[in-house]
């Protein structure tokens, strides 16, 4: 499916930051409610990233569909007898149409590709379209998640009641959560409530620590940082305290309120996950 038609320009600015997410990080995008319209986002991000003119891309898409898609396929990925243009070395090596334009202009009669009755501006538009396509394939930051709403909300509710109710309530802390995130973001968020985009640590989810000194004195607070050689915290009066660690001294006990989420990762089945997401989106 070609999804280039809708409002490419309006989305461009919104999605530009996604391009700077490094390859190893999860590419969570801000949601707009609903998970089925992500295709537009992907190609829009690719237009921005490839620095092609969005108007040229749109004209190129039409010209490509009319003149090229019959043989090279709707997405340029080829068909029997016509090569994949996205993996074409000539296309990948091209800059500003220097290599591509002559092929479109003159055809490749020996390979069965006809000369096409296209104007030079039309050829330039098709070149822009191709460059966006190769950029989109080659850059994960432009990839768009598809629909994650495949689960059974009723089964999800049963799972929620059996597993999550000890800490959460559909009418309490999670009231309205289905309206605050699109389905993909919601799935990412409930699986890993800490972290993620802009995910600060609230007082409720903060990891706390108790340090027991050799004389028996206990100092507790919000964990600041810990490694094998030191531990630091902020106590209830807001004072920063830091301690040298040497092996088991002093005794350090850490309490992470999010640990149950971590422990559940080894227990979920994939249907459990999809069902719970399907249930949580109903909490409007």
């Amino acid at each position, binding site marked *: 499916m070609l999804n280039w038609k809708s409002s490419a320009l309006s989305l461009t600015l919104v999605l530009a930051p996604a391009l700077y997410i490094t390859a*190893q990080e*999860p*590419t*969570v995008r801000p949601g707009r409610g609903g998970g089925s319209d992500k295709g537009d986002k*992907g190609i829009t991000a690719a237009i921005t990233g490839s620095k092609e003119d969005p108007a040229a891309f749109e004209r190129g898409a039409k010209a490509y569909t009319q003149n090229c898609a019959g043989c090279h*396929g709707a*997405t340029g*990925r*080829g068909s029997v007898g016509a090569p*994949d243009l*996205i*993996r074409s*070395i000539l296309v*990948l*090596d091209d800059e500003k149409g220097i290599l591509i334009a002559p092929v479109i202009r003159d055809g490749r009669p020996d390979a069965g590709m006809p000369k096409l009755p296209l104007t030079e501006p039309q050829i330039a538009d098709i070149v822009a379209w191709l460059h966006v396509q*190769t950029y989109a*394939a*080659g*850059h*994960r930051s432009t*990839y*768009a*998640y*598809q*629909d*994650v*709403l*495949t*689960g059974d909300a009723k089964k999800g509710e049963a799972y929620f009641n059996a597993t999550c109710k000890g800490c959460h309530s559909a009418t309490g802390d999670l009231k309205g959560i289905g309206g605050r995130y699109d389905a993909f973001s919601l*799935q*990412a968020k409930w*699986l*890993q409530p800490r972290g993620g985009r802009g995910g600060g640590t609230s007082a409720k989810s903060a990891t706390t620590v108790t340090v027991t000194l050799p004389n028996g004195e206990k100092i507790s607070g919000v964990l600041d*940082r*810990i*490694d*094998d*050689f030191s531990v630091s915290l902020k106590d209830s009066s807001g004072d920063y305290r830091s301690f040298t660690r040497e*092996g088991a001294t002093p005794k350090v006990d*850490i309490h992470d309120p999010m640990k149950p*989420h*971590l422990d559940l*990762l*080894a227990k*979920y089945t*994939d249907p459990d*996950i*999809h069902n719970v997401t399907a249930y949580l989106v109903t909490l409007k």
Partner: protein
Amino acid sequence: MKFLLASLFTTAAFAQLNSATILKPPPDSWPTFNGDYSGKRFSPLKQVNDSNVHDLALSWSTRFNLGGGGGRGLSIKSTPLLVNGILYFTAPNNVWAADARTGHELWHYEYPPNTGSTIGNRGVGMYGNWLYFETPDSNLVSLDARTGKQRWKVQIADPKLDYTSTVAPVVVGNHIIVGIGGDHLDNPGFLQSRDPETGALQWKWWTTPRKGDPNMDTWPDEYSAAHGTGQAWIPGTYDPELNLYIVGTGNPNPVMAEKSRKGDNLYTCSIVAINPDTGKLVWYFQPSPHDVHDWDAVETPILFDGVIDGKPRKLVAQASRNGYFFVLDRVTGKALVTKPFIETVNWAKGLDAKGQPIPDPKKFPSTDGVLVSPSSNGATNWPAPSYDPETGLFYVGTSRSWSMYYLTDTDDHPEGWGGLDSTVGNDGNALLAIDYKTGNTVWRHDWPSGSGVVHNLSTAGKLLFTSNGNNFIAFNAATGKILWHAGLMAAPSAGAITYMLDGKQFVLICAADSLYAFTVNQPVK
């Protein structure tokens, strides 16, 4: 001053680095990526040892300015080479030479800015007086080690096809063996051997079969095999007796969308043994048949001799990114041990007759997501493992990570990555000491925070050097007890090396843009 100049002059007149030196590196050298061909990263030095390591102190530290196309934020991810008292190390687009006794910079080569990825550079290879360096835009550059002046450069791959080159070239005889990286546009993977004097191509081995080759039936067709990638982006190891270059290959492409590449997809995610004179494949073993999770099997395959089932054997071991530890007979490539080294792995249905994990199709990326451990970053990754022949333990930094793997490209002809993974948690990071005979963990150290996938170096001083966060740490290699640490200004970014110069053992570590050298101070005579 005169004395100094004279000694510099004699240094320059030292014997050139030759094959014999690389085969048996003297203790005042570290002439290859792993120190020697075996990949053990084990040093016989023991001036610094378990009884005095608490006195290990900074001898020198030097910050190096990144230039050329380097830019800010780049790290020295190269293991330095040490030859004739001079260190050679790199960052993308940058090569330096520095005095190993003092950290004093001797020269700095800057490669011109270019559009290649600057994700990392693992270092230089050396032959005679010549250095070999891969650039982000996939050129192999040869430098004169005495001056840092460029001798020549040759293109090894087309950077516009998304190739990027990070590998430290490996010198075997008169072969400069280079690999490449880049897996975003389904481009063919290969190893090349280049002539040390001219850079001319000696041979090229495709990491996937071509028409008429064996194992083409592990791909649907020639087209999918030719676009199957499998980049070998970490230097391999070499057995001079068997004359085998043993190296790991990366993931198949499209990375997470497997619809158009049904089959085992040889020789991606494989450990392969290549004859370095001919470029011909001798044997292979595939840690991840039909990988869909980006689990490159490039982690250093370490060569050592040992006894399994009462029989002395020539072995090769890898802790693979997919979470499994493998020990193979390196004469035949047959698996002797296969065992998961993190408890969370959940993607295989069992093992096949060859000892290879059988991937569970239920854990292939889907549009609504599947939960898999480890994440695409892996249970481990390229940071160096180490094998200590005195403890018989294999040391590796690990992470028990979880990700949701999503299919994003549902086209019948998916391209590039075709999917994404979104991390959802980490059950912890640990340093493991693994018994090669069983794959069982003999001791472990769970880190309270910070990354677990870090570099290792073991020594005959009964020590294991590794890191966590900004801390450079020494363990008792046999017991797993921490004996020493130093907080650096950044997290160590490459493998530590150790060497003896003028009667003093140095332990050297790179962290971001700086090098730190530690010694145990000796009594004043």
